[in-house]
Structure formats: structure tokens, C-alpha cells
């Protein structure tokens, strides 16, 4: 992780319906290589913010740059979309081809890669998400976790700097979730990709470098998981609950068995209990 800020959003405001803003002045900084989790209840504007990162909706007010590209610069929208890839919630609604390899090659082709180069990067991307040799398979025959990894490969094939995942695990089973998390982690380690993961899964958020809390179209808090995810008041004001580990620790403290700041991950809990 470096100090370079790859995403800089200042006061981003968006109203789908005039007079009823979904985003009202959201600000967010993300450093290159960072893993940021965005949490917030339904309707708090997370998806709308993500769409801005990809220039899928026009910037109405505020400023937003991704890797130095101004999202309001219509001439560079295409460039921005290559630099910032998106994995969506429903795996089945993001495939353009039912053949895995074809789907993964879609992005590179759109971004001007030759046929041969598109195929090559597609195969590489499939291997890097743990699906080598899947290029001929039918996407509809895969498990949810495999489908989301195909979607991730489709994004990786365009070699993005930033990967945004919008509730990408909410429709798949726990095993699929773990597979996707591992593949994203590998993309981060091997490619230095910056990860922005929108999620309702507090256990997943606990593994981020930083947690950003959104409420009613604004970023209301951000910080290390150890700080944000243990702040019950903050979380409940945003319609959220702390991770199970934090709640368990709270109960242990209340009964006088434990004391001190709560751990946020199972590993943290275990090491505290064993020390």
C-alpha cells in the first residue's frame, strides 16, 4: 500500500429523482493497494457511489477522480472503466456469453485488445481466480462461487487498478464466498489491485484495512475495523450490527470473564483467549 490516493471523492451528490438525493455529499479517499469495506443499510447509497466510481451514472455535483481521471471528463470514461472494474451482486446478470472464456474475453475486446491477446489474457485471468481450464464450460453449469470468480476474471482480464465488488457474496453460499474472497486476496497480492468491497457481511468487513460506514447518502464514519466494528452506537445508528465476535466479546465482558478492547475476527478472539 502506498500513500498515493487512487480514489478521491469529494461531496458526491446524486438524485435519481430530482429533490430526493440518494447520495448527499459523500466523500471517500482510497489509497493504492488498500482494501476498503463499505457497509451501510439498504438504500444508504452504496451502489450509487459504486456506479460513480465506474462512471455508469453522470456526476451531478461534487468531484471524483480515479487514478487521476476525472469522472466528469466524458472523453475519458472508457479509460476510467478499464482502470476500475466492477463485480455485481447477481452473477447471472453480468454474463454476456454463456461460454466462460468468451465472457472473460469480453472486456479486453471492448478495450481494444486483439483477438489473440484477448484470449490469452482471458486464460490467464481464469487461472488466477483458480479456474484454469474452465474456458469452454457453460456459465450456467457453474456454482454461484465459480460464477462470481468468472465475473472477477472478466474484470481482471482488463487489468484494472481498482476492483469494486457490490455485494458480490450476497447470493452465493459460504463456500463460494470463501473461494471468491481467496481469489480477490490473490488479485490484491499478485497484482497490487485496490479493493473496494461493498458488503453486509461484517466478518468480511473485519478483514479489510479500513471500514467505511454509509448512512442516508453520506459517509458517516471510517477507520480501522477494530475501531469502527466495535462501536455499537455508530453501527446501530447506521442500521448495522457488530460482527458476531464483537457481540460475543461484549457478552464476555459483561459477565466479567474478559476485559479490554474487543477483537473483530475469530483469529483475534482466539489469540486473545489463548494469551
Amino acid at each position, binding site marked *: 500500500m502506498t500513500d498515493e490516493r487512487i480514489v478521491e471523492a469529494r461531496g458526491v451528490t446524486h438524485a*435519481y429523482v430530482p429533490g430526493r438525493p440518494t447520495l448527499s455529499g459523500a466523500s471517500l479517499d482510497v489509497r493504492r493497494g488498500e482494501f476498503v469495506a463499505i457497509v451501510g443499510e439498504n438504500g444508504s447509497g452504496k451502489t450509487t457511489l459504486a*456506479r460513480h466510481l*465506474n*462512471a*455508469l*451514472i*453522470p456526476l451531478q455535483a461534487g468531484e471524483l477522480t480515479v487514478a487521476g481521471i476525472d*469522472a466528469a471528463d*466524458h*472523453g*475519458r*470514461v*472508457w479509460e476510467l*472503466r*478499464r482502470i476500475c*472494474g*466492477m463485480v*455485481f451482486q*447477481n452473477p*447471472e*446478470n*453480468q*454474463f*454476456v*456469453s*454463456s*461460454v466462460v*472464456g*468468451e465472457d472473460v474475453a*469480453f*472486456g479486453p475486446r*471492448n*478495450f481494444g485488445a486483439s*483477438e489473440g491477446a484477448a*484470449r490469452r489474457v482471458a486464460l490467464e485471468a481464469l487461472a488466477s481466480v483458480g479456474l484454469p481450464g474452465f*474456458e*469452454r464450460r*457453460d456459465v*450456467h*453449469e457453474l456454482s454461484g462461487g465459480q460464477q462470481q470468480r468468472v465475473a472477477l476474471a*472478466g*474484470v481482471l482480464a*482488463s487489468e484494472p487498478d481498482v476492483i469494486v465488488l457490490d455485494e458480490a457474496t450476497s447470493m452465493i453460499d459460504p463456500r463460494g464466498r470463501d473461494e471468491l474472497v481467496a481469489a480477490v486476496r490473490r488479485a490484491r497480492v499478485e497484482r497490487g489491485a485496490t479493493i473496494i468491497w461493498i458488503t453486509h457481511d461484517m466478518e468480511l468487513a473485519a478483514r479489510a484495512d479500513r471500514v467505511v460506514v454509509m448512512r442516508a447518502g453520506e459517509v458517516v464514519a471510517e477507520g480501522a475495523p477494530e475501531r469502527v466494528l466495535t462501536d455499537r452506537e455508530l453501527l446501530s445508528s447506521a442500521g448495522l450490527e457488530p460482527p458476531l465476535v464483537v457481540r460475543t466479546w461484549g457478552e464476555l465482558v459483561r459477565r466479567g470473564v474478559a476485559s479490554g478492547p474487543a477483537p473483530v475476527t475469530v483469529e483475534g478472539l482466539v489469540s486473545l483467549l489463548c494469551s
Partner: protein
Amino acid sequence: MRTFGGYVWADSPLHRAPAAAKLVGLVVGAALVLAVRGPITLAAALVAVAVLGVVSRVGWRRLLAPLWGMRWFLLVIVALNALLFSVSEPLFSLGPLRLTLPGIERGLLIAARTCLIVVLGAMLTATTTPQQVVHGVRELLKPLARLGVPTETAALAVGVTVQFVPTLLRESRQLMRAQELRCGGFAARGIMRRAVSYVRLLVPVFVCAVRRADELSRAMEARGYRVDRRRGATGERGCS
């Protein structure tokens, strides 16, 4: 569920050829096949298709599979021609049915032509994704676009629809099962009530299809797809 459209992932000159050229090729090829008359031209056409088949690296199993699917149809074509073609001396006759040698020949020729065209079609779908077909259609429709016909939108709509066919079919089957559980089977009831059941099925499927199309179009844009390649950005488009 097998791949819709039957694309076979492989790398061959046919896979790499532009879809528009392949579409034109299919039309020209079909016209040539229809011009086949005698055994020599038929043999030439067979050799040509066989060579294309090898070049395509698709595998004969996939190319010939549609013929197996239409075997009864082919048989009927041969039989009808053989029995009803009544110009010459019959080999054998039974009431109005007269088996003649030219009839058999004619039946076999028509069946052979049908087979050749079907194999050419299979070659197109096996080497061209629906997405590329859509692109090819768009290329070919370009002259129409100049006259103001919205060919882009039409081609995109075709692509999206083709893509969702397997998912929608599966969803309809699930809904059908759910409705059967709730209010009895689809079969063996009054025709009106059955019609009502189908409408009840269609509405949610349609709503799903619209939502899917919306999400897919967004996912495609996110991955750099541009409806209008001349314009740099689609960012101005609002969110509907």
C-alpha cells in the same frame, strides 16, 4: 443445460473470421448448395463442406448433431419425393403411391442439400458467439442505419434476449413447479384456466427479464461496451 447456440471454444480461421463475413458466407454457401444438381456438383459440395468442417476444429459430433435431431424430417422428405414424383415409369406402385427412380434421386438430393445447409449453419453457430452474430448483423445493417433505422438498438436487444434464454427457461420451469404445487397441475384442466396459469407465469418472468436486461446493460457498460463506437462516452446517459 447445454450452451445455447452451441458455440464451441476453439481457435481456428473460422473462429477468427468476422461474423459479417461468415453470415454472408452462409447465404452464399446455401445458394451454391441449392444450385447443386448432379452427383459431381454434389460431391464437390460435400468435399467443400468437409474441408470447412476440418478447418473449423469444431468436431463432427457437434456439426452433425442437428442432422440426427431432424432424421425423421429427412426421411419424410426422401419418402415423399420417392413416392409422389410421378413423371417416369414406376418401379413399384400401390394406389396413388408410385415409387420411381428419379423420385428417389430427387428425394436424396433435396435431403442432401438440406443436410449441407444445416451443417453450414451449425458451423456458423459453433464458431461465432451470439454476441459476434449480433455484431455481424449490425455491420450488415449499417446501410440501413444511415437511413435512420435504429439498427444498434435492435441488434443489442437481440443479443440480450439470446443471452437470457437459458436463464429465463429455467426460471419459468421453477415458477411452473411452484404454481403446480400451489394450485394444481398445469395439465388436465380447462383450457381457460390453463391460459390463466400461463399468463400468471408470464408476468413474473417478464418482470425478471426487464430487471435482468437493465442489470446486464450496466454490467456490459462497466466492461467497456459501447453501443455507439464513434462516441467516446456513454456517461451522459441517465439512469432509468
